[in-house]
Structures are given as structure tokens and as C-alpha cells.
């Protein structure tokens, strides 16, 4: 597969004149400088993408695991910390403020506390200046609004992390994050809102404006759970791959397109999208979906807590999944180095496997029958 290239702003004078797609291949050239461009094509085992979730991992303040509250998620600090590891991309969430500024933040609402009361605001109803008032401030001496977050059991808690950082915009990310690190830009929408075509188009154009102005050579992937937004961002531009995000059947929505891997495939094929990003449990419950997805020429990436388990990541490599989004960036990069790279080297050179984890086809078939039974509640 040919390497991915970004388009320069000059090639894209305005959104109506997007040139015919060049290569929309996935695999970044981050670490292949000096190696022939068709190296990826000659490898019998494809590269395996490693993507940092919200940078260096999402935050769960109440977690007993310190890795879930080390660095503030979705911040420049998190992105640049992730850049130190052999990652292909970082993933982060983009929303657009009331005054049309794309910012990076995961939750639909942003919370702070004042005089014992929790105040909740929708990010998309704030203007940029109001949004940036939350959390640590860039100007020395300035006090930001202390961030709170809703916990799993519905309570409100301070958003505490070991190393905090200020909120940032999409533009700042392009300008201040290590240039060779790819961005998987998740286009965030409210799961329970119905969006008109015009409204969606406007939001996407605002985001694309920043992308085309500041992306330069940086590899980019768009992804979203919103089926219409996915198909629309693909119609609006031809430069960067678009993936449809799905829970893969582990959740049920009113919009049936969100309810299964099969539906996700339909959305991709109808809209000319490049692939699917699915919750890993949805794939493990139905391993037979993987060959179907690949036969349709779609890529498959996964996300979810299970992706922080090295053995689960290795299984996915064996199953031919194209990449994983992970929180434990350090630990999983080691997995890729320790388990996957030796496998690739061995198969490339047709030598005896160095790796002790050479599961045969028979063993793999067996495991793909075992795994769904363990994931399903009995």
C-alpha cells in the first residue's frame, strides 16, 4: 500500500475544488524515512497501527491505576508525551464552539463548581474565550475554573490528574505537536441530538478549514460515530481517510446504523469510507466479521479497555486487524516491539520464528471459537 501523504493548503484553494483522491492509505510514514515507499506493499504482514487514545490515554480520576490519571487527556502535554513513543497516530475529540472555533474536548458538557453547586455547560454553547476559562490557564497568575467531571456512578468529582495542562484548540494542536505524529480527529457530536444536513455541513467545514490550513504533511484520519457526518466529511473532502466509529453491537441506538458491525460496513460501502473503528468487544464477540470487513476492502481499527491488555492486542494482530487505539501507550508499544515486530521480521525473511507465540491456523481457529463465548455473559 502506498504511503499516505497530506495535501498542501496550496493544492486545495477552497473546499469546492478538492482534487481527485491520491492515496488514501493508512500507514503513516512516520518511521519509514529512508526506506522505499513501497516497503509496506512488499510486506506480507501489514503494518499494525498504534494510536494513543486522547493522546497519552484517557483520564479516569477515580481509577486505582495511576496511568489513568497521570497526564490531562486531550491536551498538548498529553499529545507531546505520546509522541515520545513509537505511535503512528494520536486520537482526540474535536467540537466546535458557538463562535466557530474547533476545540479539543471529549465530553459534551463541561463542569465546574462554585459555592457548592455544580455548573454544567454544553461545550458547543460556549464561545472560545469562555471555554478556555476552564482548567489551568496559560497566563501566569491567572486562575481558571476548576474542572469537574461526572463519575461512572453519577456523582461529581474534581478532575484531578498528576500533571495537568490547559485546554487547547485544534489549531494549536497542529502548530505545537510533534509534526510527524498523525492525528486521528474524532468529530464529536451529541449522541441524542438530530442534526440537520446544513448544520452538519457548517460544523464540518469549520473543522476542515483549520485542517487544510495547518495540517501540512501531517497524516490525518477522520472518524466519527455520527453516520451522516461520516458520509458528509467524505463527500466534502477526498484527501484524508474517513472511518466510521461504532460500538459494534455492544450498545443499541435509535439510529440502527450504529447498532452492529454489519450496519457499519453498509455505512462505509455506501459512503465510500475507508474503514471502521469498532469497540474491541464487538469484534471479539463476532470474529467472523473481520474477514468480511477485509474482503470489502475496508480497514478495521479497534478501541476499548481490552486494548490495554497486551495479549488482546497481539490476538488482534494475528486476526489481521489493522490497528488499535490504546490508553497504556508505553506498555502497548512494548508489546508491539516485543511480540509483533519479531513476528513481522520472521515472516518477512521466511526464517524460523523467533517468536514463541506462533499460533498455528488450527490454534487460531480454536481461539476464535473460544473468545466469543468468554466475552458473552452466560
Amino acid at each position, binding site marked *: 500500500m502506498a504511503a499516505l501523504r497530506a495535501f498542501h493548503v496550496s493544492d486545495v484553494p477552497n473546499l469546492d475544488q478538492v482534487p481527485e483522491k491520491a492515496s488514501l492509505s493508512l500507514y503513516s510514514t512516520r518511521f519509514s524515512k529512508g526506506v522505499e515507499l513501497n516497503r509496506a506493499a512488499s510486506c506480507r504482514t501489514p503494518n499494525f497501527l498504534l494510536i494513543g487514545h486522547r493522546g497519552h490515554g484517557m483520564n479516569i480520576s477515580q481509577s486505582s491505576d495511576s496511568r489513568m490519571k497521570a497526564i490531562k487527556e486531550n491536551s498538548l502535554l498529553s499529545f507531546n508525551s505520546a509522541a515520545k513513543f513509537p505511535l503512528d497516530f494520536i486520537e482526540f475529540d474535536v467540537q466546535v464552539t458557538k463562535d466557530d472555533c474547533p476545540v479539543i474536548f471529549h465530553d459534551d458538557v463541561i463542569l465546574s463548581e462554585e459555592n457548592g453547586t455544580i455548573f454544567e455547560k454544553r461545550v458547543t454553547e460556549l464561545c472560545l474565550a469562555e471555554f478556555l476559562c476552564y482548567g489551568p490557564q496559560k497566563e501566569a497568575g491567572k486562575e481558571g475554573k476548576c474542572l469537574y467531571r461526572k463519575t461512572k456512578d453519577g456523582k461529581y468529582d474534581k478532575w484531578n490528574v498528576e500533571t495537568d495542562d490547559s485546554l487547547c484548540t485544534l489549531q494549536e494542536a497542529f502548530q505545537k505537536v510533534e509534526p510527524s505524529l498523525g492525528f486521528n480527529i474524532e468529530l464529536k457530536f451529541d449522541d441524542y441530538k438530530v442534526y440537520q444536513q446544513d448544520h452538519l455541513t457548517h460544523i464540518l467545514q469549520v473543522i476542515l478549514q483549520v485542517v487544510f490550513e495547518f495540517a501540512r504533511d501531517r497524516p490525518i484520519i477522520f472518524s466519527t460515530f455520527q453516520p451522516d457526518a461520516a458520509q458528509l466529511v467524505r463527500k466534502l473532502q477526498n484527501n484524508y481517510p474517513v472511518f466510521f466509529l461504532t460500538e459494534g453491537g455492544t450498545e443499541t441506538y435509535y439510529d440502527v446504523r450504529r447498532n452492529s458491525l454489519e450496519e457499519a460496513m453498509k455505512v462505509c460501502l455506501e459512503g465510500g469510507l475507508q474503514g471502521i473503528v469498532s469497540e474491541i468487544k464487538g469484534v471479539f464477540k463476532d470474529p467472523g466479521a473481520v474477514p468480511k470487513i477485509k474482503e470489502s476492502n475496508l480497514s478495521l481499527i479497534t478501541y476499548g*479497555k481490552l486494548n490495554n*491488555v497486551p495479549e*488482546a492486542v*497481539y490476538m488482534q494482530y494475528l486476526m489481521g486487524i489493522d490497528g488499535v487505539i490504546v490508553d497504556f501507550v508505553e506498555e502497548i508499544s512494548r508489546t508491539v516491539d516485543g511480540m509483533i515486530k519479531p513476528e513481522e521480521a520472521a515472516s518477512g525473511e521466511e526464517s524460523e520464528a523467533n517468536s514463541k507465540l506462533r499460533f498455528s491456523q*488450527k*490454534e487460531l481457529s*480454536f481461539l476464535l471459537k*473460544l*473468545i466469543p463465548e468468554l466475552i458473552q455473559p*452466560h
Partner: protein
Amino acid sequence: MAALQAVHVCDVPNLDQVPENAALALCYSRFRAGVNGEETCKCKIPKFLVMGHRGSGMNMLQSSDPRMKSIKENSLLSFNEAAKFPIDFVEFDVQVRLPSNVRRFPVTKDDYPVIYHDNFILHEQNGAIVENRVTELTLAEFLSHGPQKVPGTVGKPLFRRLKDGRIFEWKVEKDAPFCTLEEAFQNVDRSLGFNIELKFDDLVVYTEDELSRILKAILKVVFEHAKGRGVVFSSFQPDAARLIRKLQSTYPVYFLTNGGSEIYTDVRRNSLDAAIKLCLDNGLHGIVSEVKAVFRNPGAVARIKESKLSLITYGQLNNVPEVVYMQYLMGIEGVIVDLVKEISETISDVTRVEEGEEDNLYGDDEKMRAKAKPQFSSDELSFLMKLIPELMVQP
């Protein structure tokens, strides 16, 4: 390990004189015919036991799978159907009627142990559902439920209350009457072992006297009628398990546990480690655990083996052939299953060929079928023992 032999009834005149460390009849050489067809009962302990749950499988009335409502569970029919397959034991539940004043009344014929799983038995009468505690019915009342042995007579229409409270008519494809423990000994294929689960109500607190009386009533039947048949006892009730071991050392006693899937006030029931402690403190033979608890904590298998305890599992997951084979690879000693035909046939390909290897009992064809199963290396197995518990974490 020395060969095991059953203890003959004549060696055990009455309960007070059970010989210490009598050989335990755990072995099963049921299908171990030699090359010439003769029985070569070397009485080796099979490396992997398969036990039929309530005979040919429990009845799950709410299931859409017809195999889960094919034969009436815990009936002679179910036990004898199970005997047709290469399994070692059938498991079933025994309860004993308990008169209200235990001390004043001697053991009577109404203390017959009966085979029935639920604490309550339901029937329909005049359009209403009547519910009775099994242990408060006389034998005649109990046997009047469901199909009757005497042709032409009609029993009380049987219903069942599920865990979620729903009540179903207890309809199965091949129905059968209820039976007593004695009838099971007398009418079930002799070579099939019995895993007798001593059933108690989780919500009732039993005195030592009550337990003792119930267990003695059961032991009386067992010693009178077991003859050469292999028997093991098992129970979720920690004191019953303790006590049946104190009362006899002829037959192995297993402690049943769900390994922490549910929490009880009695802490001995709440984890695999607590089960290990109970077994070691009381000289029990081993543990029967819900398979999920073992898969969530594969490290416990090593601790159980180090304590020289046997480990058998039960649970819905045991109806999946790959899950059973994994347990065989992990060194678990046996499984209790509902899908008796499917699982016994899958697993016997492997286990019997491996056991027979030394005696050269099997031809190339059979060896090939066994080798058709995946052979995981020890590194791969370690890998799987790290992966499996992570897959078991439910949201």
C-alpha cells in the same frame, strides 16, 4: 497412584464402623475395553472426568435450545440416557424430608432421600399455583407430582419457578416420574458413578443435629445400595461438606462453590481461596467450582493443585467444547456438563487416546483424531492464561 477399589457393602456393616482410609471408588474404566474387547479395568483414575448435570442435562424452560428441555432432569430416564455416552458420573441433587422436631422422632421411612433440585416444588390446582417446600412433603406427596409410574394414573401438573420469579409449566420432550435415591441405585446402569449433591436451602440456618440427621439418612441408603458403584459427595453447604466427611471416609467429598460470583454471609462460600481452606481444614477431596470463577483467576488452579486437591467445574460455559478443552489443558480434572452427548464425544477423542498411549490401545486413526485438536505450547498456554481473565471482565 494406587488402584482404587470400591468398598463392598459387607465391609461396612453400619455407619459407625466405616474403615479408616477405605479405598475410594473413583475410577471409571467404563469404556476401556482392550484390543480383544475384554475389560481391562486397571482402575486408573481417568485424567479428565465428564459428569452429566442432573443426568442428561438440566432443564432450562426459558431456553430456545430444545436440548435444554429434552429429558426430564434428575430422573431415572435422564440418568440411563446419559449412561449411553462416554461419561464417568451423573450429578444429581438429593434432599431429605425433615420433620419439624428432629430430636423426638427416630428416622422413619419418610426420611427417604429424594432426587430433586429446587427447594420448592410447584403444581397447579383449581387454576392456582400451589408451592410446597420439598422437605416438608411426605414421600407420597412428593411422588404425586408429575408423571406417575403406574400407567393410567395422572400426577399433579408440574410447574417451576425460575430465579427471576417467572413461573413456567414444566414441559419437556421426554418426561419421566420423580424418584428416590434408592431407586437410582437400583435402576441406573451400574457402571455409572453418582456425584450426589447434598442439597440445602441457602437461606436456612441448619443446626448440627439437623444436618447430621439428614446426612445419616442419605448415608444409610448409600451404604445399603451403592455396591460397587463409584460415589462422590458434594455440597455448597460448608458444614454439610465438613460433616459428611466426618461421618464417613469411604467416598470422596467435594466442596461446591461459585468462587465469588455471589457473596454470602458465610464467608467460606465467597472465594476459591476460602474453598481451599475449608477443604484443607477438613480433609475434603477437592473443589467443584463455577467455571467462570476459575477462568477469572487461573492462578487459583495452581494453588489448588499444590494443596493436593482435585478441581472439577460446572456452569453454562462447560457446554462449549473449546472451553472444556482449555480446562483439560489447564490440568482441571473434570467438568459437569448439560450437553452430555456433544461434550463427551468431543473430549473422549483426546483424553482416552492420551490415557491409552502407554498401553498402545489405539490405532492411527484415533490418534489422528486426537492430534486434530490444537496443541498449544507452554508459552502459548501462559499467554492464554493472561488473556482469558481479561476477556471475562463483564462491563
